[in-house]
């Protein structure tokens, strides 16, 4: 299986760094685990979020008996956007859950739960290469919940000139008119779709999804619209 990459943004101090989350197949059974380099500098809540994503995938979609997946983080440009020294927070939940869901669907479709088998083509075919996710887990409902510093994170995607995500997935309840981060003094847009960067960069389309499966369903429909024009 080719590694699966999903965009997300890491907050470090007052800045956000756009990065790629990489999900790779690993030939040992067990839960998904963080790459040792990341694990060494990750805060407990960061590790816990990866575990939550694993468990949600296990219970909703299925998990292979004989293999697992390793979660890594890749820098977009190690000079312009170096990885932070530490990893904390829970806003990478959406990216991990979405990446794991597709990894299981592509590498181990036979281990999918019977009730989720009908989703296999959707989870296999959706392209995540240009998708960013900024969503945390609402542990009571199992849905996505808003993340903090959302404008800082979205701005980090917008400022990329060449390689940038095409769309960013956020929680349906994510409010872009308030921000808990360092840009509180910036006037916020009332109609935030697409997101317009305060720095005048190209606008970033937003996709509001309830959970990882909803992400795939919405992206699938969007892809279908794109494919209809070229098939």
């Amino acid at each position: 299986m080719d590694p699966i990459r999903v965009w997300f943004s890491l907050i470090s101090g007052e800045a956000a760094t756009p990065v790629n989350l990489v999900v790779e197949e690993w030939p040992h059974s067990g839960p998904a685990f963080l790459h040792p380099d990341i694990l060494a500098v990750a805060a407990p809540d960061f590790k816990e979020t990866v575990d939550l994503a694993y468990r949600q995938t296990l219970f909703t979609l299925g998990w292979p008996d004989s293999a697992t997946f390793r979660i890594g983080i890749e820098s977009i440009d190690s000079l312009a956007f170096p990885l932070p020294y530490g990893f904390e927070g829970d806003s990478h939940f959406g990216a991990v859950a979405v990446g794991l869901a597709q990894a299981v669907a592509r590498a181990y479709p036979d281990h999918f739960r019977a009730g989720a088998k009908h989703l296999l083509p959707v989870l296999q075919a959706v392209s995540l290469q240009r998708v960013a996710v900024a969503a945390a887990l609402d542990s009571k409902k199992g849905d996505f919940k808003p993340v903090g510093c959302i404008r800082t994170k979205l701005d980090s995607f917008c400022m990329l000139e060449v390689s940038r995500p095409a769309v960013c997935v956020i929680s349906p309840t994510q409010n872009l008119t308030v921000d808990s981060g360092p840009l509180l003094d910036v006037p916020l847009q009332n109609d935030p779709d697409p997101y317009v960067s305060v720095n005048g960069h190209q606008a970033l389309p937003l996709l509001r999804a309830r959970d990882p499966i909803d992400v795939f369903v919405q992206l699938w429909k969007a892809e279908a619209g794109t494919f209809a024009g070229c098939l």
Partner: protein
Amino acid sequence: MKAALRVVSACVNVMLFLLSSSNAARLLVLLTTLGAWWWLSDYYFAPWPWWMDRYAFILCSFLVLVALSAAVFWFGVRRPARRLAPSFDVFSGKASNTRLEISNWCEILRTIAGLRKGLWARYWTWYRLRLEKLGRGQLQVRGGSLRTVWWFHPSAFPQWLAAFCLPALWVLLLLVPLHTNVMEQIAIIASTQPQVIYDVRCVGVTKYSSRPGGESFAAGAPGRDGVFPGAPVRETLDRGSSGFQRTGRCAFLADGSFEVSSTPFPRVYRSLVINCRERCDLIPRDGAAALLTDSVPVISGEASFKWLQTSPDPSLGMTISLVRQDGTTIDKVSIEP
């Protein structure tokens, strides 16, 4: 070039869809083919070359099919697809370069079909069914080659068979005899005017010369005031009981043209058969040797021919027959003197 090929292959798919799955499209193509055949082959354009009578309907039928396919492709597939395209493109390269298994493509086509109703849904469902019959398991296919990947599979035989019914119809119609009497009967029934020769106009210029072996009829001839050399003549001949009479200045012409008008029923083939009976010659338009008998087509109820008097006898002794394509005479008149 590649873009043009993509459009052509997509249009071929639409054409195959229309001919194999759409009764309305099949009926339309059938009716237009039959109509074109009847209109152009059974019912003729007199000045056309023979092969136009025979083959023009194929061109019309083909153009109707192409126009129908292009219209459905543009208005039923491509334009709605553009409207459905999201504001973002998640593909890092071209979407058509995406490689997926056939089963995944089928699911995508199922989703696409569900995005709209009507012709859109029918077309994409038909497309999906073509791919489902491939049954190629884990084989990954690029989006760009999906349009043609099923074309040469045995499961595509019914679609190609449906498409080849149209050329078969063309061949069948080519074997049917041309120019039946149907349109003639319609012309007779539909026309409110009698099927006859209406008028004969004499056109020419008087010359200072005499008829061959006869008297001078130029300026100053007794009883012919106003006739002078170079005088243009354009007058309608009087119709008497025995035919048309050259009674005016036309009687002084030794050569000229006759313009004949008859029933102008649209595009039913008629011709004039002119017989000079050795007193005059008929001069063909192509400059060939003069003839005693000639035939000219009647176009929109009008025909003309040139003649030259060759006998000292003032009488032309010319007869003009209006005939159908099958040779039957509708009307026959003589021109005297």
